[in-house]
């Protein structure tokens, strides 16, 4: 399959230079290669929230559920529970999943439900034209915080690790090869996969220079070790201007999953009328 065949007829409205283009192109490549390897795309469902990130589902000609702000996870969870054969991938933003819908994100990790969440982490609200998000650094001067924020950023990778996610990685939109590898492994992983993508917003928070200087890919780390993963995710707190920023796969474990243990009884196997009659008789 040619990755370019996965586009749609609609006009792309991201700003020129937006990091989302890298994510879109990576998704096209990864989905095409999954298809070629025997994972047909009719079994893939994309779910997005609201924000610049979310437009990706309009640009990919694949099954999709364009949800509302912060609410990718519950939709994706139910799609997976309805049909465990489906591969369900959430595209979400930092405002989307870490502010408006944080409870769902933590519960997805806690349940270790077999879905993937790709966090388009640009650390600013783009579509509402430039306010701080949960991952903006301390002192960030956005439209709602003209004097600079008074709060430290959240570390989503650390949060996901302690919440029970069984796959955690981080990529950068200048680094397509790593993104491809991470997306594919995350999608194939059985359990809740969280990929934090440092996605640059050229208009409201252009971090290209900073990231280019400081990112590095972790190698030979023990991805089955919680402690080692914790050390890596804590080595950069989304605030420090000095520490290097690790990229790569931090954690990858095979752990019990909600979709595995969920009692998904199949209705068609049951003679309902007889069961209803039986129950009514038991109520006499």
């Amino acid at each position: 399959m040619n990755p370019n065949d996965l586009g749609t007829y609609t006009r792309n409205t991201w700003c020129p230079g937006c990091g989302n283009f890298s994510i879109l192109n990576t998704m096209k490549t990864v989905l095409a290669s999954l298809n070629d390897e025997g994972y047909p795309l009719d079994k893939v469902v994309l779910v997005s929230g609201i924000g610049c990130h979310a437009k990706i589902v309009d640009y990919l000609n694949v099954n999709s559920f364009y949800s509302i702000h912060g609410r990718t996870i519950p939709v994706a969870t139910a799609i997976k529970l309805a049909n465990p054969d489906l591969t369900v991938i959430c595209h979400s933003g930092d405002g989307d999943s870490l502010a408006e819908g944080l409870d769902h994100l933590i519960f997805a990790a806690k349940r270790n439900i077999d879905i993937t969440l790709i966090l388009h982490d640009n650390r600013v609200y783009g579509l509402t034209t430039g306010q701080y998000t949960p991952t903006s650094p301390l002192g960030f001067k956005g439209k709602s915080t003209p004097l600079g924020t008074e709060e430290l950023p959240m570390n989503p990778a650390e949060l996901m690790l302690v919440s029970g996610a069984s796959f955690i990685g981080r990529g950068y939109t200048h680094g397509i090869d790593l993104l491809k590898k991470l997306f594919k492994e995350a999608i194939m992983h059985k359990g809740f996969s969280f990929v934090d993508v440092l996605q640059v917003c050229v208009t409201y928070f252009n971090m290209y220079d900073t990231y280019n200087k400081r990112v590095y890919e972790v190698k030979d780390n023990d991805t089955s070790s919680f402690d080692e993963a914790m050390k890596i995710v804590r080595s950069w707190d989304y605030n420090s201007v000095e520490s290097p920023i690790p990229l790569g796969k931090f954690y990858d474990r095979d752990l019990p999953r909600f979709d595995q243990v969920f009692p998904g009884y199949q209705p068609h196997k049951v003679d309902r009328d007889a069961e209803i009659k039986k129950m009514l008789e038991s109520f006499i």
Partner: protein
Amino acid sequence: MDDFSTLIGGIAGDGINEAGVTIGRLFNQLGYRIYMYYDYPSLIRGGHNSSLVRASSRKIGVHRDEVDVLIALNQDTIEIHKSRLKESSFIIYDLDKVKVDGISQKGCGLPVSKILKEEEAPPIMRNTCIIGGFCKVTGIEWPILESVLTKHIPKKLEQNLNVARKGYDAAVEYAKIERLRQPSLPILTGNQAIGLGLIKAGLQAYVAYPMTPASSLLDFMARSAQEFGLKVVHPESEIAVVLMALGFAYAGTKTAVGTSGGGFCLMTEGLSLAGNAELPIVIMMGQRTGPSTGLPTYTAQCDLHFVLNAGQGEFPRLIVAPGDAEDAYFWSGVALNMAWKYQVPAFILSDKTVSEALYSFDSASAGEPDEESPVVWDGQGTYNRYKYTESGVSPLAFPPDKRAIIKVDSYTHDEYGITTEDGKITTSMADKRMLKEKSLASEMEKYETVKTFGQGKTALVCWGSNKGVCIEAAELHGLKVVQVVMLSPFPREKLKKALSGVDRAIVVECNATAQLGRLARCNGIRFDQEILKYNGRPFSLDDLEAELGRVLK
């Protein structure tokens, strides 16, 4: 004996609800139709709980104020309920806990503590003991109690039977409840009837966060999941509940959710998404006394306009309000069928009274809400999730489908399901949604969405839980009853017809502003008078009689 009321009272934790159900079952075994009002505060242990069980030879849906037998597990029961005693009433009480000084009615104290001690029985069996005594007092033969306990309380059966027998033997005979020549019926709560109606119509998943008075529906669904092949999920919040339901619907799984006012507040954004994305969902909204936390365990009909108008933007919705267990069974199934046929949100608007009252259930008169098929894509050409059609309903497809790419969208979208800001498409999609409302309304023509009972120049107009009380009061006064079952789309012509020949229409509601009255006015129909109750308690038959005495003067 055509009308017999029994009240059992104690503290929360005494098993008062279950004791009331057991009393209901005893009458049921003798061929009576029963109705139980369960009154309890919002706490786990302590406080005062009471179950008021009324038995009659005919179908009933309301309680009376006076009782024939008062069963007191504690002193509070006497103090709180002595106003319910008539001269002929009989009191059964726990000798060790209750004093009946100054009460003129006959009674019988049972040595409950002594019996429990002899049988080394846990305190929860106090009610089994006293129900044993109740059977003797009312002339209900021992084998009937034995069979009820054996069937319904299999846990520690022998001990229960021993305790009950000693209670039976310690009591005196006072009255004789005659056996009626009619079959026993299933007795169930409104929530159980709602659950079974949904299941009958093909429900596949139930998602809910606990909230009174909807929690017992979640409990019922979770307990029955395996028997009926249901996926039952209790997620992190009502926001997750409604979004999960929409995820299930996208994947082709027929899903219902249940909540009360506060939880429904959290669902409204998802409700609007269901409206725009045209995803079917059934919402059981069990009203309770508001605003805000209000009286969590008490009743109200105060959310009609909230449910009518919830969610930003304009989109069609079905709202049905069952008035008893038969209505609950039938109309819940209809709600599920219509949600899927028209891809709209459908509400079962209940309240604490209907959801938690116990009814005799006559399935023959309820009607069977058989599963109906939604409009499914025929596989021809390119699949368009939001294809324009004559009915406004676009054929459904579900992933995985090799022939189709299925895109749903919370934004304004084109037929394919891709976001657009085009003005023409925006208008067309709004028209499509309004067309669905017309198609839905026209299909609902064939249903009895406005019911009438009896004849008269004066009519009581009601919706939901006041059905039972209105029917019985109307019979006594020679009035007509008009029950509006469907609140949206509003059945204006049917209501007009039901009111033709009526000189005076009195609307009876459990709210402070006559919400049905307001809805009818919006549709050009005026009621002449209002009888409203909004202290959290449902109308008893006597309440409504007293109000009618005042209003009909």
